[in-house]
């Protein structure tokens, strides 16, 4: 199963990298998001706030790439006619689908690094990371947490044909509920509580704490806990939704 997972991840990263449109987006978006952090949040006079804003923008981009990338990838499976073959494979379907969302997370990880690099290059964002080791662990932990949330959402993409539209619609609510778009302190309390159940919330906290704050490890731990929970929920949903799709006969539909 490990082999199927790693092979799936590799195949989907390669498949993604061979689409010039997707690739140009991944190159251009980090510049856009770095600009948002600099201009829109008006953080240019406070170096630490500027770094925090850049990290937030980078995690926003990471989430966008995962949710759009995995929904697009799932919709593509329908268009390519491979979804039925993936369902018919003898390995558990979650092991087939998880690599697609984690592959999007890997692309998102690159985008995070690229956003920070462009921020430093263009806007002189200070890359002074307080705890480099914790930061190096927090980034893949965040990728995993976001990728696994993508898996939960991918289960619905198996059931519904308009996966890509659903993926687009899911971008903003998660940005808001995790405090990536605006600080949670200015939003009603319940919004922050929703964020507790979302991987990007803990992923962003882990990365920010590793860069700026004193205690990143509890947040890194929470990333792993929510990732495991998401995998369990995602695998259960996938089993159930595939059963529903087999009953309705919708796996082949585009």
């Amino acid at each position, binding site marked *: 199963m490990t082999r*199927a997972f790693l092979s799936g991840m590799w195949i989907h990263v*390669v498949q993604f990298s061979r689409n010039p449109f997707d690739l140009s987006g991944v190159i251009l978006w980090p510049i856009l998001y770095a600009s948002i952090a600099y201009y829109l949040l008006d953080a240019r006079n406070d170096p630490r706030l500027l770094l925090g804003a850049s990290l937030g923008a980078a995690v926003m981009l990471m989430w966008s790439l995962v949710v759009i990338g995995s929904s697009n990838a799932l919709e593509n499976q329908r268009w390519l006619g*491979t979804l*039925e073959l993936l369902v018919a494979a003898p390995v558990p379907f979650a092991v087939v689908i998880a690599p697609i969302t984690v592959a999007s997370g890997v692309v998102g990880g690159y985008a995070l690094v690229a956003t920070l690099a462009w921020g430093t290059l263009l806007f002189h964002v200070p890359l002074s990371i307080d705890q480099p080791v914790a930061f190096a662990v927090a980034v893949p932990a965040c990728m995993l947490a976001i990728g696994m949330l993508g898996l939960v959402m991918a289960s619905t993409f198996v059931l519904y044909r308009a996966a890509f539209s659903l993926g687009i619609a899911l971008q903003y609510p998660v940005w808001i509920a995790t405090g990536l778009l605006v600080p949670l302190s200015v939003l009603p309390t319940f919004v922050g509580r929703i964020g507790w159940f979302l991987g990007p919330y803990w992923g962003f906290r882990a990365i920010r704490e590793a860069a700026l704050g004193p205690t990143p490890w509890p947040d890194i731990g929470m990333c792993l806990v929510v990732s495991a929970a998401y995998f369990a929920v995602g695998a259960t949903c996938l089993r159930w939704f595939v059963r529903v799709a087999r009953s309705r006969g919708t*796996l082949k539909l585009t």
Partner: protein
Amino acid sequence: MPAIEVKELHRTYRSSKGLVRRRRTEVQALGGISFEVEQGELFGLLGPNGAGKTTTIKILTTLLLPSSGTARVLGFDPAREPGEIRRRIGHVFGGDRGLYDRLSALDNLKYFADLYRVPVRDKRRRIAELLELVGLTGRERERVETYSRGMRQRLHIARGLLHDPEILFLDEPTIGLDPVGAREVRETIAGLRDQGKTILLTTHYMYEADELCERIAVIAGGVFVASGTPAELKARVVDRTVIEIETFGLAGSVVDRLRTLAGVASVSTETRDQSEMLLVQSRVGAGLVQALLRELDGINVGKVIAREPTLEDAYVELVQPA
């Protein structure tokens, strides 16, 4: 134990339209079919588009649940034990979908080998063997998007055989292929049959079923209309004569009128480049040519031929009333 056992299989598709007042529609794809396929047999499901062939294959390959009835594949229930079946069967469908276009054939095969749990030590050898079998050796590093339809179809077959399945399901494997490509695919299938592989083949080409299958079931409108060996099916029309009349500007109403003539068993038409070929089946010695030509008065008629029926005529005769 038969490799495949199907009893009274039904499948109905339900759909609904409309946001406020939802209208529900039901389409019956299978109306209670039963058959068995023995180990090592190449069994053909033959029928026109929409007959229920693909629905049958989807149920047997665990991709679709039946509405009622039972099926057993190698003794396992496709609805309740999909995992047991999936590791033992291969599934190949026709058309140019079902592959990762931007990847090479080799990458496609490697990925599916991992999904189908081909042991690491066997993977390289197995892929090389299959590329050789389907005639793609030397082209395996090219992207699939550059492949012809025939090459894609042969790659599909290689993918379906990666884990050396006990049963191979081939769903219209030659659909859309040019004659040369289709012949190559049929040769590959014949090779697999000669190796003793159990194969369930669906097709709407009579000659393909005749060339490859040991037994055939003809399906139309979701029910079986006949089954047997190709020779047995042909025997159903051995007492017939087929009259072929080339016409130009044939109207549908004329065809309906011909069907009512005494002695006519069936009438079908085939559209050619500039003309319509009228195929009329009748009992031997019915002497219908003059009567048919009288009915076609006013329509330009080309050549007229009376001949013995072929297997394809038997097929047309079987599926036409459905």
